[in-house]
């Protein structure tokens, strides 16, 4: 890898990254997988670094995954949630960030309800900023862990056919997956009711498949998006029951697939809505391996942004015997 293949200061999304940079993250994640399998799950790579996890939106999986990644790299971490912080007193995002930076932090992991919030922050502070999900824009580490999981199972991403099924309109996971997968040579289709597909999505290099049966015939893997329950009251779909009937991933539907389909889901799942339990818990589901890979991918991102050199054995060597 050349020096130019570093990641830059921030990870705001996969759109700005090159294929080489994405591959660098995935490759760097490989050795970190093993760290989490050790008795002592800790390496000193980020010792002395201070990281703030700034979560303006509720999150369980992503926040805990980042926190484990940080702790397993020996960073010092602080969690800030919007509720109970000065944000609920009306402090602006930029003021919150500048105050944190005044305490001499090294990195900020931000989850925010507004698209562009991570980039907004990254443009205004010197610390590294990692986007843990901004509005409907991007959720790059989720897409990276999806891609790592796909690569684990298929041994490659080039030429794979991935269908993203569900509420693409409101999904940052979908956008990051589209950028990442297409840059690495996979074919991507989106599938869902037209009321939940953004206009012009084809211009992002994806195929639109109107029926879930078509997606099942076409794809090697399905990435099933969470259907936010409030979409029903907002008039995007008539009912959850009907959504399941027309777009739900059921074992009945999967039986007609020409090959075994790998099933991904970013969580949290609505069982019986976008995905049936027997599929989610079935033999082709990689939903839990995705979560495991999430820690490794986030360790890789943190390590690279902190200036770590890819492929350095020091990254995964423990400090203590």
């Amino acid at each position, binding site marked *: 890898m050349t020096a130019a293949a570093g990641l830059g200061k921030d990870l705001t999304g996969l*759109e700005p990254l090159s294929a080489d940079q994405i591959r660098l993250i995935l490759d760097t994640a490989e050795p970190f997988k093993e760290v989490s399998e050790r008795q002592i799950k800790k390496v000193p790579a980020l010792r002395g670094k201070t990281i703030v996890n700034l979560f303006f939106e509720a999150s369980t999986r992503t926040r805990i995954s980042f926190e484990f990644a940080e702790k397993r790299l020996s960073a010092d971490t602080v969690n800030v949630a919007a509720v109970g912080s000065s944000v609920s007193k009306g402090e*602006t*995002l*930029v003021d919150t960030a500048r105050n944190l930076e005044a305490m001499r932090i090294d990195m900020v992991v931000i989850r*925010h309800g*507004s*698209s*562009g*919030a991570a*980039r*907004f922050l990254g443009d205004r502070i010197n610390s590294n900023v990692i986007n843990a999900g*901004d*509005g*409907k*824009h*991007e959720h790059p580490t989720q897409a990276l862990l999806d891609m790592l999981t796909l690569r684990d199972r298929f041994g490659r991403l080039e030429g794979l056919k991935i269908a993203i099924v569900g509420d693409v309109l409101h999904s*940052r996971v979908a*956008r990051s997956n589209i950028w990442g997968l297409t840059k690495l040579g996979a074919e991507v289709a989106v599938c869902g009711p037209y009321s939940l597909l*953004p*206009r*012009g*999505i084809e*211009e*992002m290099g994806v195929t639109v498949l109107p029926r879930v049966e078509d997606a099942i015939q076409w794809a090697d893997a399905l990435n099933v998006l969470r259907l936010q329950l409030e979409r029903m009251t907002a008039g995007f779909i008539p009912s959850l029951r009907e959504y399941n009937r027309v777009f739900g991933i059921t074992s009945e539907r999967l039986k007609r697939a020409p090959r075994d389909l790998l099933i991904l889901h970013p969580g949290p799942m609505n069982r019986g809505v976008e995905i049936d339990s027997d599929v989610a818990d079935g033999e082709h589901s990689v939903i839990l391996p995705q979560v495991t890979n999430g820690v490794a991918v986030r360790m890789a991102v943190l390590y690279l942004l902190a200036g770590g050199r890819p492929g350095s054995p020091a990254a995964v060597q423990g400090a203590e015997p």
Partner: protein
Amino acid sequence: MRPILLRGGRVIDPASGRDEIADVLLLAGKVEAVGQGIGTPDDAEVMDASGRIVAPGFIDLHTHLREPGQEDLETIATGALAAVAGGFTAVCAMPNTDPVCDNQGVVGFVVSQAQRAGKARVYPIGAVSLGQRVSSWPNSAELVGAGAVAVSDDGHPVPSSHLMRTALEYANVFGIPVADHCEDMSLAEGGAMHEGIVCTRLGLKGIPSAAEEIIVARDIILSELTGGHVHLCHMSTRGSVELIRRAKDKGLKVTAEACPHHFTLTHESCEGYNTNAKMNPPLREAADREAIREALRDGTIDAIATDHAPHHYDAKEREFDQAPNGIIGLETAFALANSELVGAGVLTLTGLVERMSTMPARIFHLPGGSLAKGAPADVVLLDPEAEWTVNPAEFRSRSRNTPFGGRSVRGRAVMTIVRGQVVFQLS
């Protein structure tokens, strides 16, 4: 007041079909004479206008002056100064102030603050609905009596078709237009930018062109029903242009305006979550921008208006979906029109003066917009060749929110005269 003789400029006055090198004599607040070799009255101030365009002052049909209520963003005095610096001799002030301009007290206040400022003329626009919210009306006769020249709920559409219908009927009594901000709120609610590929990429909620076009269509239909004069504010889509063109072919009393940002920029300017490119209606696609240009050329859109909307720096220094809509425009409008429309061969200079002065005066029934003998001595001297770079720090406006900072433009007002007095001179 000394008479002013503007000597040797290129006089462009579309109202009288004039485009020639001539002198202009201003006397007692009126245009006294236009022609070659006008004698100099004894006490006249003689100014060399050679190399300059001499035109009737620009008139902005759509300005937000923020006073009363948000004087930290703009006052009538700073807005009127920004106006004359941009070559405008009159601006129409939208009523979405605090309190709303929905009674003769506020109308009178705007008029008296403008007189005190003594720069551009300021014509208040009254609200269509009380507080711009409820479906009951202000006393229109009192609004007009106090100086209102039109009614509008700008910032919001007139919400119901019934209210729009009756407003058009009632405004007919006074011969004033109802200026509508066309936006179907059920389609646009929560939208942050134009619905298209850029908004899909950025993950923002889009405002479809249909949101504007549905209300444009409604207003045209209601104009036909009532015979009332509907004025369509800040048109931004190619579909709106088509609807207006058809309405005009039918001879309906429909007029329309477009803003410099809509004939200059596209939704691509929102890339990087640039909040200074966030406005409502939003920046649209290249095909929309072309349609707006063509509509300004062929007269489907009558006037160029700024939608000057001051906002505080902090308010724009926010997450994109949290930032307010709008940009200021008084000090850049002429340069953009000159660079983008005249420079690209869309309009002649005569056509530009028509869209920025003659037509605005005509469709809102305002004084000015003409250099005929007896017209108000509201005149602008323009240097259409002046090249300059937009520097928001130099604005006279109290706000700085513009997407045009750093842009190289051509054309500038060098002197502005209102009521026969020089109120602005470029240093």
